[in-house]
């Protein structure tokens, strides 16, 4: 047996277990949900009845349902602000946590803590109790400043400010990714730069940031996905509501889900295009 063939067999055996689970519990449900989105689905006592309608439900979601463009436009405007904020915040905290100071381990632990909090009923309960907003942000000056902006953006910005705390909480995994990235840079590079007369500011821009570009890319992708699949997402609420409504049902709900998914895909393609150049340069 050729070594190449042998390696391929080993490779397949390494992924096979995971791939089977993935195909059964992710890929098949995805394909099936696409099929549902092309049908009007009615629930009978013991089975589902499919009535093929083609792309009609997509057309309805895009052009005839006033709620969907409104909700999504506002949400995308909000995400456009929130995603860079989360990544930059994670980057700044990661830079600080990468310094040496007493109690560093403890500080890192605290900043990663929100990851264990940002799921489940726990966080919903907190926001219901108004702990997720910062009352000082509602003072007159900020509101006035915001009011000068166009409506969609003003509303989006207010939401971002109100959920400031949430922004901080959503940056735990990204912080960990970035710290790991900073650790992966060889310390001798910094030594060499210092000998050549570079100050800390210069090494930050010329060594640290280029060195962790792949990790920044991972963080951005993670943030996009995390934001768009979080339980606070208003579009998911719309989808879930349509699941329960008998006259629209699973079919319409999955059609919205697929449209939504197409938009996330487009955003990630844009992110990849932005990062293609810096990532490509690094590989040389």
């Amino acid at each position, binding site marked *: 047996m050729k070594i190449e063939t042998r390696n*391929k067999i*080993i*490779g*397949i055996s*390494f*992924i096979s*277990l*995971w791939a*089977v*689970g*993935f195909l*059964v*519990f*992710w*890929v098949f449900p*995805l394909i099936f949900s696409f099929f*549902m989105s092309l049908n009007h689905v009615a629930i009978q006592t013991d089975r589902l009845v499919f009535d093929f309608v083609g792309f009609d439900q997509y057309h309805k979601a895009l052009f005839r349902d006033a709620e969907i463009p409104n909700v999504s436009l506002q949400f995308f405007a909000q995400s456009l602000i929130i995603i860079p904020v989360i990544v930059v915040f994670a980057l700044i905290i990661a*830079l600080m*946590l990468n*310094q*040496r*100071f007493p109690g560093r*381990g403890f500080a*890192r*632990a*605290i*900043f*990663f*803590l*929100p*990851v*264990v909090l940002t*799921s*489940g*009923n*726990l*966080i919903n309960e*907190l926001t219901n*109790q*108004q*702990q997720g907003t910062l009352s000082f942000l509602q003072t007159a000056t900020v509101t006035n400043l915001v009011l000068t902006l166009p409506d969609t953006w003003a509303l989006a910005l207010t939401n971002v400010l109100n959920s400031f*705390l949430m922004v*901080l909480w959503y940056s735990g995994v990204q912080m*960990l990714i970035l710290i*790991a990235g*900073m650790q*992966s*840079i060889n*310390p001798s590079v*910094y030594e060499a730069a210092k000998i050549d007369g570079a100050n800390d500011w210069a090494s930050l821009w010329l060594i640290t940031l280029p060195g962790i570009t*792949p*990790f920044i890319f*991972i963080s951005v992708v993670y943030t996009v*996905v995390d934001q768009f*699949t979080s339980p606070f997402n208003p579009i998911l609420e719309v989808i*879930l509501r349509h699941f329960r409504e008998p006259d629209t049902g699973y079919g319409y*709900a999955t059609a919205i*889900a697929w449209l939504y*998914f197409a938009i996330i895909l487009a955003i*990630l393609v844009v992110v990849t295009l932005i990062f293609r150049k810096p990532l490509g340069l690094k590989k040389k």
Partner: protein
Amino acid sequence: MKLLSRISINRTSLFILLLLTGTAVIFMLPVFYIVSTAFKPLSELFLFPPRFFVQNPTLQNFNDFMQAADASIVPFSRFLFNSSVVTFFSVSIALFISSLCAYAFSRMDFPGKKWLFNLIIIALMFAPEAVVITRFLVVSQLGIINTYFGHILPHIAVPVGVFLMKQFMDQIPASLSEAARIEGAGEFTIYWRIIMPNVMPAVGAVMIIVFQAVWMDNVSSVLYMTEESMRTLPYFVSTLTAAIGTDVARQGAAAAAGFIMFMPNFLLFAIMQKSMIETMVTSGIK
């Protein structure tokens, strides 16, 4: 060694320390809140506007919780047992097969590699709620309704796990595994002895993510289990919360339940965090 590291306690690091302390306090708020709520007497739980810290701490909520647990038809210990079994197996299996798969994606060549990885990225982006119904159909077709498999299997193939670990493995220099290969190590040895110890931060992060997803998951209990005795702790907690409308005393029990559900998360996190940091600092990557 690192940026600014030569500077001992001067203005810059003092500033950083202060800033970090301030942010850290904000970060800790929810934890304080959960703990303090669990010890609030009923009068303070219903206070409006809600008060952040408890004034007259009491253990009454835990008593209420125990009573609610005694009153439930299926013993509380059964829910706890189910949750422990399901979480333990889901997390260990998920970590093992996802890391193995990530290794293959990062270091090996096999037919359909690119295609499958793109599929992972796509699955990552798809809102999980949208496939709940179709996944239910799969589970019922497999005949694993009302079994532990129904709890465990849907959780073990996590796209985010493979994605994060693969990206970390890509950053480990090829020379490290090449050296081991020259010494005669097989692929599994390289994966287990060389690569895995170096991606512990990613393993830790994925472990916490999966643990959370499984430990807090109520979907499989509600959808895939029709027998009470096969359901898990989050289901029990949700029955407490659902009863609030009719039963005021249960509110206290629910607050205590929130605390009890949160503690394992917190402890796992406290343990993992330490080893994750140590590995990052001493890893062979540098």
